[in-house]
């Protein structure tokens, strides 16, 4: 037993060293997922705040209109495109969905009408058919603002009022979902694409065949691959966490040790898919189509690039059974929702079940040549 372990550890040690000498491998395991992190992180940055891209066209020169425009420009809710000065220019941008709506202040906006003691006017909100939601939302926002202003000028009793109450709790941001998905993507990259590229090459060169003439066992070979992949995987994921925390303001609320344990289990399970595919395939041509059939559904349905709750109900139910789904859900539940390993027993159970199935297949179909 001790000899067997020595075999495994020596293979692990040298394989891990080899990885760090290979710049291309380092790029694909660490650099590549980081690029995705930057791309998707930038898209999602801003944490799901609602903001409207609007244009403001002011035809009035009253002081009230000026003040009102300044207020809108400085508001966080509105992103005002200051390049647009005419309605036609705004319409063109709206037709390309680059603008949500236009606020038009007519030339008599804010004037004090004869007989009145206060300014008045009617702002116009212009939007296209596709942007009805934003348009209506904008209408009610403006209406609420005017109500506040109106009450300053005209004293009126307001029997019903509404008050917004911001809770102190954080809800999940878009980035929290994206980040868990990106970790899933990185695990797939290392665990599946690694072995299916390396194994057929080793077979072609006769390296695995040469090893098969020694007493080395398949389980020893697999175990050493698992340990070094888990190690390399943890380093790669750690880099992603560091970048996400420093640059994209990720808050990890869960227990780090539990997170590491969960990630190791996940990496080993997904690696099994790569070992099964790469171990079975005689050459690259044979394995590529099969790998795509297995990887792409997981890539799109397990919540890698967009969250599963956006899918139709029936699809969510099916995709819940993909091997990557509990991985991504589990990472999010621990890291950003602070759940414990016991809380996520359903996810762990599913990963365990897949692990048994995958490794049974992997050992069964493995070929040394």
């Amino acid at each position: 037993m001790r000899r067997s372990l020595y075999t495994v550890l020596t293979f692990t040690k040298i394989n891990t060293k080899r990885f760090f000498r290979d710049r291309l491998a380092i790029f694909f395991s660490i650099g590549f997922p980081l690029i995705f992190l930057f791309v998707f992180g930038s898209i999602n940055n801003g944490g799901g705040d609602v903001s409207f891209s609007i244009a403001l066209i002011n035809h009035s020169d009253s002081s009230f209109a000026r003040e009102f425009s300044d207020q809108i420009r400085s508001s966080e809710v509105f992103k005002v495109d200051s390049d647009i000065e005419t309605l036609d220019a705004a319409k063109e941008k709206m037709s390309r969905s680059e603008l949500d709506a236009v606020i038009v202040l007519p030339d008599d906006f804010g004037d004090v009408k004869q007989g009145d003691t206060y300014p008045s006017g009617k702002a116009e909100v212009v939007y296209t058919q596709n942007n009805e939601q934003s348009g209506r939302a904008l209408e009610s926002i403006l209406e609420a603002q005017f109500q506040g202003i109106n009450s300053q000028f005209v004293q009126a009793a307001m029997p019903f009022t509404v008050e917004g109450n911001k809770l102190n709790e954080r809800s999940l941001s878009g980035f929290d979902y994206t980040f868990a998905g990106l970790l899933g993507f990185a695990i797939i990259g290392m665990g599946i694409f690694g072995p299916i590229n390396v194994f057929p090459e080793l077979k072609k060169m006769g390296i695995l065949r040469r090893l098969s003439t020694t007493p080395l066992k398949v389980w020893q070979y697999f175990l050493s691959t698992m340990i070094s992949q888990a190690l390399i995987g943890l380093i790669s994921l750690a880099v992603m966490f560091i970048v996400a925390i420093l640059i994209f303001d990720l808050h990890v609320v869960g227990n780090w040790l539990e997170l590491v344990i969960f990630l190791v289990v996940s990496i080993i399970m997904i690696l099994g898919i790569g070992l099964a595919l790469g171990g079975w395939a005689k050459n690259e041509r044979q394995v590529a189509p099969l790998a795509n059939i297995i990887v792409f559904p997981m890539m799109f349905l397990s919540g890698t690039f967009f969250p599963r709750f956006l899918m139709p109900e029936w699809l969510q139910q099916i995709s819940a059974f993909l091997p990557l789904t509990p991985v991504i859900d589990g990472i999010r539940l621990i890291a950003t929702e602070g759940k414990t390993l016991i809380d996520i027993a359903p996810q762990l159970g599913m990963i365990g079940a897949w692990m048994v199935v995958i490794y049974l297949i992997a050992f069964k179909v493995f070929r040394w040549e």
Partner: protein
Amino acid sequence: MVEVRDLKKKYGDKQAVDGISFDVKKGEIFGILGPNGAGKTTTLEMMETLRPIDGGTSLINGIDVAKNPEAIKKIIGIQPQSPAFQDKTKLTEVIELFAAAYGEKVNVMEFLDSVGLTEKANNYVEDLSGGQKQRLSITTALVHSPKVFFLDEPTTGLDPQARRNLWELIEHVRDRGITVIMTTHYMDEAEILCDRIAIMDNGKIVAIDTPKNLIKQLLARGFKKKQVVEQANLEDVFIDLTGKDLRES
């Protein structure tokens, strides 16, 4: 040491190995010769546990290959036709890996030294020449002190200097008491190196004896070469002009 009896292998309709039998004594260099497709490599692979045996038996040190392949693996060393190693691996690590595959820890430098690769110890395998790879491969096959050493066309593609160097290495292995079984396409190699040879054709052994005896038997049948044999050949000229020193490193 090695007993092969009525060994058979069929690929589809073709009887690749057709009931061959031979014995190899301890400390002997035994050559298997034959044209391409004669069944040399298949014979070797069956004896090495790499290919299932269709019929007959192969015993090494009294152990049946078909019945106990795991025990056979521990007492044989194998040099494949074209040795390959994973890149970005140092020579010392290659030896360490192969020793570990047998669950053993060895003095790595001693093994590199035995094949003249001490200076290359910390290089990566991809920096080695063809001959150096062959030498590294030989020493990796010996990390567990096997009783029988198989080589499949070890000198194919090597320059004359590297060939001669490899012959010396193989003789050293034999001198340590290890039985050597090799295939080759080169008659000069078989004549110089092998204590006995078997000539195969179409899956059968057509002759088996020492090279000297085989030549004597041919002459006894009244064979005469058309040309008078010269006292030197072109390779002798080549070696005389370029020297015996290895051209690598």
